[in-house]
């Protein structure tokens, strides 16, 4: 059934494929770029724009600028704003991609990347670390490990006869989440009221404020690698979203792809939660929104969620640190902004099925 492509068919194909236009892609790429640059220039401590530019030029690109700025200015730009903005971009992109991947895998546009229990497990791990008074790195480590552990348990609970049906995954995820939530409550109960309980509460509300260059170096690698993993299998998500039976009929090794997606998503979300607390509503809202923008084809949806997610979280994080003298916890703003946006999208798309 070979057919020589002729030009008129070519043009038809492009239109029929409904690919997003170059303009759309440009807008989507500019969004995080503009926000990244803005994040470096904005802040409650005033650094003039030219100072910011010079600091960046000298420190990152080794341009020969004379040091006319204060140590504080340099510290703010390089050690406070830069790692924070980059981390926001990575986490925003990562959570959005995970959300999109899960929504495809679970054939449901309402799924969040936390559905398999990763946030419940990581919350428990972090609370445990806080109560044991481990140093920051211990708390992050425990959060990460328990996040992975929770998903591992979910997977093995739902694995039957060499297959992992979606329904089993969802139900097992619910069970495992409930279990770790209960354990979290137990920890809150034994934690004292003055220090540890508020510490747990604040940690869970999420913040990007403590991200320094060292944190970024550690967190960037697993997140970026996992994002690459999800990016590479984005086409397979289309097939997977048609159902196990059909994707197998189309030659997809379901189990392998599912495991890959689960591992990549879990690494991203576990790392994100370990360093930044619980950031909800990003993994659900951004894929939904992007589907409205570029359509359901994961080939374009996944990169779109990456760009829009990065920009979105940078935007929200800027609000968190600029609006008031104290930091607004990130999880609160993502919920306060995300939930109404999600409600609006639901109404607009009537559930996202059409």
């Amino acid at each position, binding site marked *: 059934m070979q057919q020589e492509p002729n030009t008129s068919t*070519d043009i038809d194909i492009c239109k029929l494929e409904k690919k997003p236009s170059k303009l759309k892609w440009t807008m989507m790429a500019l969004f995080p770029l503009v926000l990244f640059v803005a994040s470096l220039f904005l802040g409650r401590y005033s650094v003039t724009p030219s100072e910011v530019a010079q600091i960046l030029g000298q420190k990152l690109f080794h341009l020969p600028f004379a040091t006319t700025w204060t140590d504080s200015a340099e510290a703010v730009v390089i050690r406070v704003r830069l790692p924070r903005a980059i981390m926001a971009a990575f986490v925003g992109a990562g959570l959005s991609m995970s959300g999109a991947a899960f929504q495809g895998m679970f054939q449901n546009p309402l799924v969040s990347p936390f559905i398999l229990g990763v946030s419940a497990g990581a919350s428990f791990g972090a609370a445990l670390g806080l109560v044991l008074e481990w140093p920051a790195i211990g708390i992050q480590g425990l959060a990460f490990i328990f996040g992975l552990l929770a998903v591992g348990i979910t997977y093995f609970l739902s694995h039957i006869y060499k297959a992992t049906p979606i329904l089993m995954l969802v139900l097992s995820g619910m069970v495992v989440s409930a279990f770790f939530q209960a354990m979290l409550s137990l920890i809150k109960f034994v934690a004292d009221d003055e220090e540890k309980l508020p510490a747990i509460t604040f940690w869970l509300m999420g913040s990007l404020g403590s991200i320094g260059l060292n944190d970024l170096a550690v967190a960037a690698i697993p997140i970026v690698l996992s994002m690459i993993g999800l990016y590479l299998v984005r086409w397979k998500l289309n097939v997977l979203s048609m159902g196990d039976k059909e994707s197998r009929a189309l030659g997809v090794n379901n189990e392998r792809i599912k495991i890959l997606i689960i591992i990549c998503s879990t690494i991203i979300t576990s790392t994100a939660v370990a360093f930044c607390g619980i950031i909800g509503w990003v993994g659900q809202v951004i894929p939904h929104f992007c589907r409205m923008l570029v*359509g359901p084809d994961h080939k374009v949806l996944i990169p779109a969620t990456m760009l829009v997610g990065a920009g979105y979280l940078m935007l929200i994080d800027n609000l968190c640190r600029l609006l008031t003298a104290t930091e607004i916890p990130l999880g609160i703003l993502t919920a306060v902004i995300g939930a109404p946006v999600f409600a609006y999208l639901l109404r607009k798309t009537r559930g996202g099925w059409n």
Partner: protein
Amino acid sequence: MTKVKLSIQNASFGYNENRLIWHDINIDVSEGSCLCLLGPNGCGKTTLFNCINGNYRLNSGDVFVNGKSITQFSVSQLARTMGIVFQEHSAPFPYSSLEVVRMGRTPHLGLFETPSKQDTLRAYSIMEEMGIAHLADKSYTHISGGERQLVLIARTLCQEPEMILFDEPTSHLDFKNQAMVLSTVKKLSESGMTIVMTSHFPNHVWKIGSDVAMLGYEGMIAQGPVEEVMTEANLSRTYGVEVKIYEAQAGGKTNRFCDPKLD
């Protein structure tokens, strides 16, 4: 001597050891033929279908494609050889029909590959050949059931398989859509594609089938060429109800159809 494309040998299947749904099934499907699989609800027709396509594992016996056991095929190898058309259904996301058809190229793509422009063109040209090109940019979830079934057939053709299995392709479809789908299957068969089709409708067998296998509650009732096997006795035994076969002449051809006798 026509080549045997698909061969089921000594197959038996049961969800547990003691209760086998059926056993000692032997079917040979020769290249270019169209085998219809008939049987009442609950006889294990669907189970047999799933065993043929490798979804279920047989308790004993084996299924051979081109002489090679399907257990020796990798998932994508099997998909390049055997296409499966399921009953139409809705998708969770509003893919366009062209996007759905294009998914048929997946068995030919590597783990991290995405379809090229060539793949998209191929999908479109298949849709043109089937006469459904006008559906290309329509949302898969917005077209009729029959149109969806045709899109799924187009998708399977995109796989460039050596044989196609149809799972009750005309259930849930109205007259017109049934006719649309059946014509397409007939055309495929006439063009030389090996086809296995399960069906609820014995009448369709006369329209498109070359061979038939009738599965009843006690096992395989009869199998063989349509002219020999489609008898009142066999049909009645298969379905457990008295069936009468009628003939009608139209345009020089003898059309046969059957009808269960009501009490």
